[in-house]
């Protein structure tokens, strides 16, 4: 069953006099548990698409069904609720809160969702252990390496057990070896059933995904699920 269903999505930006169609007539359906890479040149609309999927942005036209529910018509507070429970974000620049420790950063989504402190502590401990960060729980972001920071960010993105994990260039600020570790981590999460959608301009990383979406000028140029790759 499809976890994400986009139909006729339009997103228009007005920059001064000019009108930019960041997304135009986009129809995409993503099934639960899929591993999707969104690729394309800068300005092709891939970040806009990711923001839209994460309910950080609203389409000007079209409909977006998340787990069968039309989320474009929800109120801002209802959207926040959906972001809190159903969507996890991983960013290129990690976006950890600098004054909070690794454990506190991981606990942040649970704190925002109003989960009691005792429950939070239990889940954070488990998550840090799972991500090999149990020795770093009390470290602040500036005391962590890039790879550790991104692992903290992934632990934070998944702590609420979301249906969809959205990753925006998750290896963009990391060297090759550390980046590979992060990719393996994300793939392991995907193998356990989490839908993974990753924006990347790195062909090698994008190629690892089971499905590639190539964006160009706000539209979908290529979808590996529809056009079977050559040789198949």
């Amino acid at each position, binding site marked *: 069953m499809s976890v994400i269903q986009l139909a006729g999505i339009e997103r228009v930006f007005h920059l001064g006099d000019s009108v930019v169609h960041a997304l135009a007539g986009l129809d995409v359906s993503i099934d639960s548990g899929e591993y999707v890479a969104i690729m394309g040149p800068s300005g092709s609309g891939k970040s806009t698409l990711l*923001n839209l999927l994460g309910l950080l942005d609203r389409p000007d036209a079209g409909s977006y069904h998340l787990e069968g529910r039309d989320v474009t018509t929800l109120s*801002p507070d209802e959207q*926040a609720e959906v*972001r809190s*429970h159903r969507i996890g*974000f991983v960013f290129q620049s990690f*976006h950890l*809160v600098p*004054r909070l420790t690794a454990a506190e950063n991981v606990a942040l989504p649970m704190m925002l969702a109003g989960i*009691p402190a005792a429950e939070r502590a239990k889940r954070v401990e488990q998550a840090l252990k799972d991500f090999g960060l149990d020795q770093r729980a009390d470290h602040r972001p500036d005391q962590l390496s890039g790879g550790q920071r991104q692992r903290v960010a992934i632990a934070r993105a998944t702590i609420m057990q979301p249906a969809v994990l959205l990753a925006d260039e998750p290896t963009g600020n990391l060297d090759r070896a550390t980046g590979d570790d992060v990719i393996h981590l994300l793939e392991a999460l995907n193998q356990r059933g989490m839908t993974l959608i990753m924006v990347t301009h790195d062909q090698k990383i994008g190629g690892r995904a089971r499905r590639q979406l190539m964006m160009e000028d706000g539209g979908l140029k290529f979808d590996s699920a529809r056009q079977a790759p050559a040789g198949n």
Partner: protein
Amino acid sequence: MRKADVLRFARDAATGYPLRTFLSVLAMAIGVAAVVVLTALGDGARRYVVEQFSALGSNLVIVLPGRSATGGFSPANALTTTPRDLTADDAFAITRLPSVRRAAPLAAGNSEVSANGRLREVVVAGTTSSYTAIRSFKMAAGSFLPDGDWNRGQPVAVIGSKIKEEIFGANPAVGELIRLGDRRLRIVGVLKSVGQGLGMNTDEVVFVPVAVAHSLFNTHTLFRILIEARSRDEIEAVKRETTALLKARHGGEEDTTVITQDAVLATFDKLLRALTAAVAGIAAISLAVAGILVMNVMLVAVTQRTGEIGLLKALGARGATIRDAFMAEAAMLSLVGALTGYGLGLFGAFVLRQMYPVFPAYPPDWAVAAALGTALTTGLLFGIMPARRAARLDPVQALMKH
């Protein structure tokens, strides 16, 4: 988000930027401290005056020669002309009134006292034995003026402690003779030091029987008549009866002014309360400035933490949650500032009291409540705008700014 978590988050955010937090707390603290110290000063002045008046004696009614049109207490009373003088007989008649416990005439003038080979300018007060009871004076040695016929003064005197000090030093003064003008008087008592009392320092006064003072100054008028009512409730009766009596004695002319200590006190009290309130108002401006500074600081915080706000939204924070967190932070800055300022203000008042022990510089309760209340209100009020701005940030834009 739970309330405890909002508070903890706000606290961590505030302590995460120590300089910014310190400066806004300092501004708020100075504002509150200013209110506390200045009102302590104003209210201290009020209390000081009230205490000085109370030192005059209790249930006191004062008769002044001359009529003031308004009947209130004003410097103009001293300037009005006197058609008929107040006399010792007037004072004696007043002692017979039913509501009067005791009354004492007071004639005043300047003269020179010489004794022991020393000469000094002094204030001479002519009165009677009842004066000491009305003013509740205490004797350091001997006794006050003796009872007796008001019109036949014995050649005796009671001196203030400072005069005794200056003329006789450590030697006993009672029984010694002094020369006052052209009179030779025997000292029968020395007053205990009472300090300043309404401009007239009792320590530097020589008290003599009223008849002696009159013949010394060659007059028969009185400066004041001091009356003590039988009770607080009878002060008004004393005032009424005295006015009627003097009017009858002065040929139907109301040419005296009867004031009660309460009325004088109330006037001063009102005046100094208004002064304190005005000073508090001026100090409150610094509170408003502090409030604006807190707003400024919070606006900077919103700009500084744009990325964080975007992240919180991405992690599922509602606008209201972010608004609450920023409001809580502004409230904390104000609260800590206000409490620090309160402490500083109390310390300032304490230092004032140490420097001027006679001055009861305690901040009044209303001023403390008003200062703390205003600080918190301005902090919260000025926190609303930045908090709302934070809550309204577009998460996509906010995240890009990181």
